[in-house]
């Protein structure tokens, strides 16, 4: 048995730099990706257990007709929370945990680009998720379904705080998701080891990159919808109220703009795991690497053209139905390309059926079946018959459990020796698989039939003479078989951790980078970061890495160093100096909680205090970075010397801001869509005449133009920063003074006020950024080669100006054009 051991002395030196301190304070201040990845995974599994228990309660209730086990109100809370937990608190965070844990390891890096952001994301997830799930204990859990359709979720029909908990809690959790997406995108593009171009990146990294990019674009429409609905509930702005010009369909559009890509956001990481495992167990490289990369990109785009297929039954012109139906059928092709690539790899190789592969086989069967019923539902006339029935429940569980859970359980067995350093001891995993496979199919296959027989979703009870009885009983009994499968899986993991034999190096003979390190992994991952520009046989490579013969095989100056590269070529272009353990992310998470939680109870002064604290802590966080000296050029090994921590456009921080602005732009586009929808499509009661363009609008436009102009010339200059700050402040004042109609009068007025608030907020952010940069300039953190703060301020000001001018057009010109 080969066990990789780092060079004597090097392990201790690197571990002293990278390890997370012991004790409570160490736990709270951890920023190391291995710790945080494990933490995400464990927390997601706890939420999965809670969601699973809720599913059991649902199945007990539906086992027999006219069952009195649960009342209607409690049933509503339980099925709403089941869907919410599984989608938002389990599937996405589990993917995040997998990405946080694995990404640096498969990319040959020592950590992610922004370790503190990972920690902040974890705290937001934990606090937000606990808020949502904890509400059940107080009997105020959300109860309007996991997609919270209006008007059911509007104040008149959901008067308690149940819906507010969903809207605020899920938005809180989404902060975590967007943070993780920024982290993953920047890390894949920039924080790789030397000599790994995009063309030779592991497929899993492609999957994670594209998934994270989809999150940046897909999640903001839901965040926006949640904010608008919460504002409607709290302050009476009638975005979705048809009596005042709003439209419930706007909510459906915003929700499904997020909701359909979400399905692929869940599926793609699992497909990435499959693409990693199959070549290992087929004993040959995967077929069609390029085809798979194209399929991932195609899926990412096409999945954003499907959202209306969740709304086929609401009354949409045939041509629009045709566009969305065509896209819905089209999306099957890139999925099929991947499946054929996997099958082809298995056929061309010498496959061995180890436990992870058993779950992959289960995935093939179940996911393909779910995909086929998806194609059925993409056909409009069939969808009209099956809409909102248990057929859809069956379909979505086939897709999500087949497409996510089975491959992820396979992945768990595949990477558990990495996490624990132990091998499985008993054959419980095989028994667990068969219980799950049989239990799953007997639970959900009958739901296709009950759905076709007319059983609607979300009913808590049904009459005994409808022919649904035995099918429901079968589903319920089988669901307990499934539960036993999950229990065995958990037991197996605990036994493996406690009694398993020490795992050998690379136990599956995968030959991939994450196995070229000791298991469980050391805090620094690689004793030296692999130089992949001259690939050598994997076993020799692992030994060389362990001996510190590749990049950064040493410790110096107390720095946490990792390489960053040119995105496309993979040539090393800088050394990143990463931060160590700190409580700052925790404080930031608590401040964010202070922003969100009091809003549940209408305590808005406390919410405002939370916002002030978040801004203050953000500035403190940013201030702690950078240097008053120009970055040195340092040797990194292999005869190469590169710059350390450059504070210019090459910095991952610049990339991070760009990625965050993509997410923000998606939110703005969704808001603009809402404004246009309310003017053009919604069957509204008429609004008052549009407000003429006034002096305040001209003031705002002038300010935005000044900010944009200053941002365009981004050379180091206090005057330019001053103009950007003054212009942004002027724009903010103009937007705040804009004489708009009262937002409670009409939905169009509410949307115009929302747009104005968006612009004012961003103009304010640009002002603060400009003032911050001025302070950095005066404190000596900025020079001709350290202009990161100026570049980021310029980018933010230009963005605020661009969106501001578009928003002014939407507020003032759109109503005129419509008339």
């Amino acid at each position, binding site marked *: 048995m080969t066990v990789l051991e780092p060079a004597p002395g090097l392990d201790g030196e690197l571990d002293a730099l990278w390890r997370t301190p012991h004790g409570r304070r160490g736990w709270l201040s951890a920023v190391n990706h291995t710790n945080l990845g494990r933490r995400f995974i464990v927390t997601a599994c706890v939420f999965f257990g809670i969601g699973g228990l809720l599913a059991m309660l649902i199945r007990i209730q539906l086992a027999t007709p006219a069952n009195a086990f649960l009342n209607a109100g409690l049933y509503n809370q339980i099925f709403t929370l089941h869907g919410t937990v599984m989608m938002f608190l389990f599937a996405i965070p589990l993917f995040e945990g997998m990405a946080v844990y694995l990404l640096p390891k498969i990319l040959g890096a020592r950590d992610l680009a922004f370790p503190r952001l990972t920690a902040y994301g974890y705290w937001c997830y934990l606090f937000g998720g606990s808020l949502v799930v904890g509400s059940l204990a107080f009997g105020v859990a959300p109860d309007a379904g996991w997609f919270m359709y209006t008007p059911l979720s509007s104040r008149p029909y959901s008067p308690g705080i149940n819906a507010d908990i969903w809207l605020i809690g899920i938005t809180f959790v989404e902060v975590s998701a967007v943070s993780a997406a920024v982290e993953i995108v920047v890390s894949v593009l920039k924080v790789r080891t030397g000599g790994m*171009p*995009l*063309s030779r990146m592991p497929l899993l990294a492609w999957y994670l990159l594209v998934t994270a990019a989809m999150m940046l674009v897909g999640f903001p429409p839901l965040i926006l919808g949640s904010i608008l609905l919460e504002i409607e509930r709290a302050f009476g702005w009638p975005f979705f109220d048809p009596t005042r010009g709003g439209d419930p369909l706007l909510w459906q559009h915003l929700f499904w703009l997020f909701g359909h890509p979400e399905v692929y956001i869940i599926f793609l990481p699992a497909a990435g795991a499959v693409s990693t495992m199959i070549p290992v167990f087929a004993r040959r490289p995967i077929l069609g690497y*390029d*085809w798979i*990369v*194209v399929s991932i*990109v*195609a899926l*990412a*785009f*096409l999945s*954003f*053209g499907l959202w209306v297929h969740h709304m086929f039954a609401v009354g949409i*012109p*045939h*041509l*629009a*139905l*045709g*566009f969305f*139906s*065509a*896209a819905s059928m*089209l999306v099957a092709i*890139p999925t099929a390309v991947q499946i054929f690539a996997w099958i082809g790899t298995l056929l061309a190789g010498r496959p061995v059926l180890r436990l992870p592969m058993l779950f992959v086989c289960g995935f093939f069967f179940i996911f393909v079946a779910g995909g086929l019923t998806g194609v059925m539902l993409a056909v409009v006339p069939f969808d009209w018959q099956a809409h909102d029935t248990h057929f859809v429940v069956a379909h979505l569980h086939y897709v999500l459990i087949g497409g996510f859970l089975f491959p992820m359980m396979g992945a768990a067995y595949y990477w558990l020796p990495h996490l624990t350093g132990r091998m499985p001891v008993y054959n419980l995993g095989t028994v667990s698989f068969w219980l799950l496979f049989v239990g799953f199919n007997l639970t959900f296959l009958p739901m296709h039939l009950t759905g076709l027989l007319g059983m609607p979703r979300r009913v808590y009870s049904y009459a005994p003479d409808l022919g649904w009885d035995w099918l429901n009983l079968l589903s319920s009994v089988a669901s307990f078989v499934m539960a036993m499968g999950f229990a065995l899986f958990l037991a197996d993991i605990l036994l493996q951790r406690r009694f398993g034999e020490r795992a050998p190096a690379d136990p599956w003979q995968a030959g991939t980078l994450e196995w070229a390190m000791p298991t469980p992994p050391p805090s620094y991952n690689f004793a030296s970061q692999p130089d992949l520009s001259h690939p050598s046989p994997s076993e020799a490579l692992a030994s060389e890495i362990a001996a510190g013969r590749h990049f950064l095989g040493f410790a110096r100056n107390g720095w946490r160093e990792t390489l960053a590269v040119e995105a*496309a070529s993979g040539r090393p272009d800088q050394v990143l100096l990463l931060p160590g353990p700190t409580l700052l992310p925790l404080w930031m998470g608590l401040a964010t909680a202070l922003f969100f939680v009091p809003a549940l109870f209408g305590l808005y002064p406390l919410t405002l205090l939370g916002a002030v604290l978040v801004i203050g802590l953000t500035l403190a966080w940013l201030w702690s970075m950078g240097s008053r000296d120009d970055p040195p050029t340092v040797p990194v090994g292999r005869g190469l010397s590169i710059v350390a921590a450059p504070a210019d456009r090459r910095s991952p921080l610049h990339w991070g801001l760009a990625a965050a602005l993509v997410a923000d732009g998606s939110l703005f586009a969704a808001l603009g869509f809402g404004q246009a929808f309310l003017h*053009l*499509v919604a069957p509204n009661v008429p609004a008052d005449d549009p407000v003429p363009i006034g002096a305040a609008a001209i003031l705002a436009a002038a300010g935005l133009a000044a900010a944009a102009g200053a941002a365009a010339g981004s050379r180091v200059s206090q005057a330019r920063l001053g103009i950007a700050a003054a212009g942004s402040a002027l724009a903010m004042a103009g937007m705040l003074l804009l004489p708009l109609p009262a937002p409670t009068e009409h939905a169009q007025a509410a949307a115009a006020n929302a747009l104005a608030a968006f612009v004012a907020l961003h103009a304010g952010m640009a002002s603060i950024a400009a003032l911050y940069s001025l302070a950095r300039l005066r404190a000596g953190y900025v020079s001709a080669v350290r202009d990161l703060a100026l570049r980021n301020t310029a980018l933010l000001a230009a963005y605020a100006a661009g969106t501001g001018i578009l928003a002014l057009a939407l507020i003032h010109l759109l109503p005129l054009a*419509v008339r």
Partner: protein
Amino acid sequence: MRRHPLLPHGAATAVGAFAIWASAFTLLYIVQALGCRFRGAETMLLHRATMYGVWIVHLVPLTLLLIALLQSSVPMRRVAILGTAAALGATAWTGLPLFFASACQ
């Protein structure tokens, strides 16, 4: 084969090609909605003609891009070609309902 000076990395090209598909899809949906909001009996033909125009305006650059890629070299060339061909096929397929579905009913 020479590196084309205007063509970016193959992965970026594939993303760009699908961005053109996204533009076609979005504009078709927008023009369909706007046309149904504003059209009268006399502008029905113009409405449909505009949608055909939008469709063709997106098919043309994708076709040209594909031809350019077949004649030049970029990093990850196969990804660029496959991605562009897929985006072209997707754009063509997405516009097919223009030939048989009623625009506003």
